[in-house]
């Protein structure tokens, strides 16, 4: 299978993103909004930290028994009249879904927001075979009109400004009055609501993702604020749930634990507006709901992550908190990462799914500041896992020669503490002296990558280790 990715060009992508005025303006919204809202929501719930532990433990337990919970889940779905399909690869998932759409005689398919559907590239596949996919989440709808990928896992169009959306709506909704006023965001929302309402009512098949699958009851769960996922799944005759195998949780109680940290971590809401638990197709006597219910369970490399250090990544519940708090994401946005999953979670997951040879830049694009780990609702040690990828990249000789020789030089000194102290003391002394008038350098040899964008602060003449020793002896005295 060919994966469409620009991850290997991360450096060029990032440089382009930094120079993109529209993007930089839009990214300001991420820094302002999400961090503050999450913080407030977390502070309002005294049990928040205990719930994070609970969520982590539930996911760990489920992953350690994933085969058995999958069996239990499959039995329950079948017992409620649904169908379960397993897909080893993206390609298999695509052909299963196309098959179901063909059986349903589908012309149009509405879609709830699903990152897995981006991962398998279902839209292009359906289009290529004469089925029209319609994204219904407002953000996804906007980027579908632009033929773009989501730039954020919960706010797919966060890289855009309202004026760009207005231009897209005018370009595509040509049946509407060209003189209409679209200057307010609410007018854009209303227009999308009206246009998509007709699509919802006309669709033959609805495809949603799943935030969770419950083994106890054979239930799939979607969490949305717009209600688009619900209209996608209750109106058409056929509902397809596309989910990856790690979405399993044992019971309704378990998922209630995790739901208490999901929305708080994502948008700072206590609970998202719509949390929907679906079990099988329409029952006898029901007035509405789908007549056919299919679940497509995707592996696509995940089963091979079990039993490795990357198993921890399979706890991820896709809240987006890690990217909302990431200084690298804030600077370059999601598209620079070059594939489906951006930010710290993407930097860990992408190499697992498409290979470290293609995505090796992503785990390197981190300052290891640790904010992502500190806010992760299921406590994934993202910096540690990024470091593991760096090690693997190094072991496989994928790291560029300049970095390898730099690391070798540093390693030589680091293993000889006396020499290290001597060398750093000399270097800091020289730099401190040279930079003492301005206190910073606009240019330094071998540090062009840094000084091209910002000044390098001049050391104050003393090394960290020297200062540490001095402070410690002062304090113990």
């Amino acid at each position, binding site marked *: 299978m060919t994966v469409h990715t620009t991850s290997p060009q991360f450096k060029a992508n990032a440089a382009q993103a930094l120079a993109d005025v529209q993007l930089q303006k839009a990214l300001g919204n991420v820094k302002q909004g999400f961090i503050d809202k999450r913080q407030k929501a977390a502070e309002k719930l005294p049990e928040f930290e205990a*719930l994070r532990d*609970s969520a982590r433990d539930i996911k760990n337990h489920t992953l350690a028994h994933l085969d058995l919970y999958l069996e*239990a889940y499959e039995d329950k779905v079948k017992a409620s009249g649904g169908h379960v399909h*397993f897909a080893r690869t993206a390609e298999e998932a695509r052909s299963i879904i196309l098959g179901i759409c063909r059986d349903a005689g589908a012309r149009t398919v509405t879609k709830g927001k699903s990152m897995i559907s981006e991962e398998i590239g279902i839209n292009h596949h359906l289009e290529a075979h004469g089925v029209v996919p319609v994204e219904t989440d407002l953000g996804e709808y906007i980027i579908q009109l632009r033929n773009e990928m989501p730039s954020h896992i919960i706010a797919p169009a966060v890289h855009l400004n309202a004026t760009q959306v207005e231009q897209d709506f005018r370009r595509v909704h040509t049946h509407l009055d060209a003189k209409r006023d679209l200057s307010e965001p609410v007018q854009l929302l209303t227009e999308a609501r009206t246009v998509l309402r007709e699509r919802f*009512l006309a669709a033959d098949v609805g495809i949603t993702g799943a935030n969770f699958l419950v083994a106890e009851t054979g239930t799939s769960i979607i969490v949305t604020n*717009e209600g*688009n996922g619900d209209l996608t799944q209750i109106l058409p005759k056929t509902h397809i749930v596309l989910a990856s195998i790690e979405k399993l949780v*044992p019971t309704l109680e378990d998922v209630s634990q995790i739901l208490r940290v999901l929305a708080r971590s994502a948008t700072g809401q206590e609970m998202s507006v719509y949390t929907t638990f679906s079990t099988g197709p329409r029952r006898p006597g029901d*007035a509405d709901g789908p007549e056919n219910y299919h679940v497509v369970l995707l592996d696509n490399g995940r089963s091979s992550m*079990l039993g490795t250090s990357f198993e921890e990544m399979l706890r991820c519940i896709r809240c987006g908190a890690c990217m909302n708090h990431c200084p690298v994401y804030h600077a370059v946005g999601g598209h620079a990462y070059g594939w489906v999953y951006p930010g710290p979670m993407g930097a860990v997951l992408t190499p697992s799914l498409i290979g470290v040879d293609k995505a090796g830049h992503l785990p390197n694009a981190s300052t290891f500041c640790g904010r992502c780990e500190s806010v992760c609702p299921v406590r994934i040690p993202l910096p540690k896992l990024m470091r593991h990828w760096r090690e693997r990249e190094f072991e496989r000789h994928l790291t560029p020669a300049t970095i390898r020789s730099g690391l070798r030089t540093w390693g030589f000194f680091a293993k000889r503490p006396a020499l290290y102290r001597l060398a750093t003391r000399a270097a800091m002394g020289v730099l401190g002296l040279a930079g003492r008038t301005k206190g910073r350098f606009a240019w330094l040899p071998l540090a062009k990558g840094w000084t091209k964008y910002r000044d390098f602060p001049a050391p104050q003449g003393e090394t960290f280790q020297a200062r540490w020793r001095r402070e410690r002896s002062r304090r113990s005295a």
Partner: protein
Amino acid sequence: MSARDDVFANIRRSLGVKGSETIRRQMVAERLERAPKGVVPARGQVSGEERIALFKLQAEAALATVTEVASAAEVPQSIALFLRNHNLPATLRMGDDPRLEKMPWDETTLEMSHGPSEGRDLNAVSHAFGAVAESGTVVMVSGHENPSTLNFLPDNHIVVVSAKDIAGDYESVWNRVRFAFGKSTMPRTVNWITGPSRSGDIEQTLLLGAHGPRRLHIVVVRD
């Protein structure tokens, strides 16, 4: 090997298990049977008036509106007043929930219609299965009594909930669902609804009424 067998084989190989280990099977069976609760926030662990007040507070924080009435007989008048106050047409669609059907709708001038929504109804009323005070959430179950489409298609969704059905936490509602539908058996759809539909997809600005109802109005019946 089928895709299914392959996925299971790969999971077991990675986990270093055969799948037949009695201890693992017992652990899983026991968890599914016992469904341990975990950490339940103290916030919802209140009863009586305090619980109703918490529900109201939380639902309003999620931008729903809440009215209380003394008895089921007062619901139609209360809804008619709500619609009038918001300059909304005096129409209302509902399923065939017996609790709603018993109410004196003919005391109002509301034009009633019945059945699921086909996408063009402005106002609908549903009866909730329960509610959760912790987060101000109403809990709806699917069926001809309260068709799921009424929760999402109308512009204005009105939900009637009995005060006695307001629980402190989600776990208490799951207990009631199990009691009503059987252990490990779910109605086709359970909807937790916390406030009206919204989107923040345009410049992170919160806008109400994305695809679902623009208004969520909750009527708490106190008898």
